[in-house]
């Protein structure tokens, strides 16, 4: 037994020594590379405070979809990204991810080794997912963490999204590009607003829902005012009818069909999957659904199943277009 303890202690000590040594080496290396680039230091803010970058990062690993989208909008390809399969399923924006972007694992537990192997000079992630491993990430590369779901009283998701987008643009020296993207987005809004007004479809408030079945029973998410999707819809001149007490950090309440009768004179937007359309499968023929005013007057609007309500500026543009098309069809 004693031998065993000794062995472990020796291994630990060796490890600690090696760890200290490595840090020193890394600093040296960073110092050497410094003079090769002439760019100025940039200080930007993330969820934890300010960080200064001496040069523009080039090898970026992204651990949350929305920041990958921000990079793509700025014309930058990440070198690594978490859960690329899920990204392709949900996010439909141009430009697409490059072919040589590496997958670094799940968004929940990305592989630190896979990230380190890419030798990144920046990691961008969502703070709420990786608070516990922030130190490990920072050992690999400078890490920026943002919180896409602001807490109560800290603004809505849309404001957070644009603010983060602009911070990142600043880091990469692409403010012009960011302004361009945002002004394009605004003109998309204006145009959509105009077309909707022309079609006379701006006369009623809306309720936005995402619905799926949980085993046999339908679950309906209704989006609240702090949700990005609601903010986008208000940007194209529509008004959210759904109001409820309490704050919800993701921006929606999960509720049942009963709640809908409080908002009967609104237009009802819904996102359902092709193979899980609760309104056709479970609720069809149910008087508590069929007799709702917006169902009777045929004012329900279906959005595509992969409608993405949590993305960045380009997803916002896609979403605004989807709403417009659903209304004007």
């Amino acid at each position, binding site marked *: 037994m004693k031998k065993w303890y000794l062995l472990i202690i020796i291994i630990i000590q060796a490890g600690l020594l090696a760890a200290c040594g490595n840090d020193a080496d890394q600093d040296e290396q960073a110092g050497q590379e410094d003079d090769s680039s002439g760019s100025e230091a940039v200080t930007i803010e993330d969820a934890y405070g300010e960080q200064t970058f001496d040069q523009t990062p080039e090898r970026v690993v992204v651990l949350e979809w929305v920041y990958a989208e921000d990079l793509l909008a700025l014309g930058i390809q990440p070198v690594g990204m978490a859960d690329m399969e899920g990204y392709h399923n949900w996010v439909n924006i141009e430009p697409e991810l490059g072919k040589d972007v590496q997958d670094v694992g799940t968004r*929940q537990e990305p592989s630190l080794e896979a990230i380190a192997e890419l030798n990144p000079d920046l990691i961008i992630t969502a703070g709420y997912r990786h608070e516990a491993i922030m130190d490990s990430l920072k050992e690999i590369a400078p890490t920026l963490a943002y919180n896409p779901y602001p807490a109560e009283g800290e603004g809505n998701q849309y404001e957070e999204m644009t603010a983060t987008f602009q911070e990142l643009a600043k880091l990469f020296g692409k403010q012009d590009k960011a302004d361009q993207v945002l002004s394009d987005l605004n003109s998309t809004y204006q145009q959509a607003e105009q077309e909707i007004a022309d079609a006379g479809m701006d006369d009623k408030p809306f309720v936005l829902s995402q619905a799926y079945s949980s085993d046999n029973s339908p679950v309906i998410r209704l989006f609240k005012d702090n949700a990005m999707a609601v903010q986008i819809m208000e940007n194209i001149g529509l008004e959210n009818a759904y109001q409820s007490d309490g704050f919800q950090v993701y921006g929606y309440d999960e509720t*049942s069909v009963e*709640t809908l009768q*409080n908002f009967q004179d609104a237009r009802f937007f819904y996102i359902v999957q092709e*193979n899980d359309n609760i309104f056709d499968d479970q609720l069809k023929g149910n008087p508590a659904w069929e007799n709702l005013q917006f169902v009777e007057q045929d004012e329900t609007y279906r959005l595509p199943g992969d409608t993405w309500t949590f993305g960045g500026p380009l997803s916002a543009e896609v979403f605004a277009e989807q709403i417009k098309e659903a209304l004007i069809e």
Partner: protein
Amino acid sequence: MNDAFLNKWLKTALTFGGGAVLLVFLMFLHINQGSVDLSWRVVWDALVVPEDIIEHHTVRYLRLPRAVMGILAGGSLAVSGVILQTITKNPLASASTLGIHSGTYFAVVISAIFLPASLPLQGLFAAFFGGLFTALLVYGLAGGASANPVRMVLAGMVVTIMFSSSTSVLQIFYENETAGLFLWGAGTLVQNDWSGVQFSMPLILAGMLVTFLLAKQLDIFRMGEDVAASLGQQVGRIRMIALLAAVLLTAVTVSVVGPIGFVGLIAPHLIKLLGFRNHFALVTASFIWGANVLLGADVFARWVDPSFSELPVGAITALIGAPWLIWLVLRNRSRQYGEKNTAMIAGNVRLPFQGGWFIVILVMLLVFAIVVGAATGNSGIQLTQSFSAVFDGGQEFLRNMIFQLRLPRLLVAALSGGLLAVSGFVFQGVLRNPLADPSVIGITSGAGVGALLVIFSAFSATFIPLGAFLGALAAFLVVMGLSYRANFQPSLLALLGIGVSAFGSAIIQIVVVQADMAVASALTWLSGSTYAKSWEALLYYLLGPMLVLVPVLYLQIRNLNVLSLGDETAKGLGMKVSRTRFYMALVASLLAAASVSAVGTISFVGLLAPHAARILLGSGHKHLLPASALIGAILLVIADILSRTLLVPKEIPSGILVALIGAPYFLWLMYRSSHVKKA
């Protein structure tokens, strides 16, 4: 005599009539709750003089189905509890304690992910076969008809751990497909039309009919199988039919409302406490009161959480039911829960060499595993590169990876595995229960509660381990405080642990469902993971306990050996049994808590490693403690290596891997031991 008659009459009237009146009252309360305010008047009109208006449809098509479903589900769960308790001759049997819920849930999650949706009866079939399979599995593993209650409940628990960890794997990898299943997994009565009722009603009626037809036979059954057989009953066939009826009743409800625990335990006991013994009355009254319990829990849940974001009713019933289980255990503490029958002969492989050498071999194996682990990562095994990176100073990058990422994880895995194994070893000795391990005592679920409280409070995530540690300790003290009344009787202690464990899990479920935030990250933590463990975790949580507590234990090992001889012998040898038991269990809990705070809740290592050591060395061997520790360490190191290499670059939480590797082995062990004894 008249008085007695009056009493009996009154009791019957209250049980049936009173129960029915209460049910009607609860039902009326229930359909008055909802996210839309409707006056009593409107609700009444909707029932009596319905019109074609949306308010009346709300009552008739949304609220009424939910209430009716609640009655059906509560009633059939209670009846299935009655049947299970009779045929297993086990007062603690119910669908949740026998693991049937976890099996049905697992089957439903599987079918939701892998089978095309939209088959109308798919959920039910999956639930039914999952439930039937689990029931037979647990029944068989525990030793069939000859099983004692504790053994059966523990078998149910192991099966539950196995299925829930498999379910967690699926939930982590199919986050989007299973998102909706989490609430359902906690049990909810949400109904949006009559289809749930229409679907389940005929099947439940069929199950009830079979039960009523069997009532007479079940009465005889209760007197013992020998009596039943001598009266000409086909015992085996009746048992099978009754089991099928019980599983049908459970599976139908689970497929509609999700697993709802403890109703099946509480309701039958209420009725039995009132003195009803004959199965016709027992089944009828249990149905009524099971319905009351569930409907009442739902009314309560919706009253507590008026936002109607669905506080899971299943968690509420567990919250009410777990203390009930504890109360039952304490109340019946004079009755022996099969105490003498818990020793497990797992078989024995004599080693061809001395125990001392065995330890040396294990140490070498561990070092070998760590070396291989340190050289293995994202790009496969790189032994030579790693060697040169470490010793020749070449490949700076690889060296960083080894010392910063791999080695700390491996050592954390090794140490926590070792600590868990030692903890399990001590618990098994102290409780003289081969199935004891830290999760049985409720420590793991206490740690989970502590950690979740930190996650969902304003504290930083760095305090999670501290929360887990305190939670584990709190759970231990509660279990010990309760067992004090039972004189720390081993099998009672285990049952109390299960009760506390269920209570903790219910709190975890409620917090997770209520808090919305980061459910997946909480799940990951709860399933135990060596992911991204750093040197800090090793230094802060593991090294101290190992250096201080393990040597202390080693000095006390004699006490453990004496305890394992039985209380009487130990007392005869002059030992203060209760006190020793308490202190040993405290040390074991501290070790487990240290491990939980470092790597989350990893089950099975504590259960498995000591058994493996015993099989290899023989049960009285002096090197058992270090051997267990080393086997535990090796087990978790291997799990860690697999967790980060199997699905590169995806990580599989190593706690889940241990359960997936360990559970089948363990079940085999149980199966084997029940056969050894019969022979």
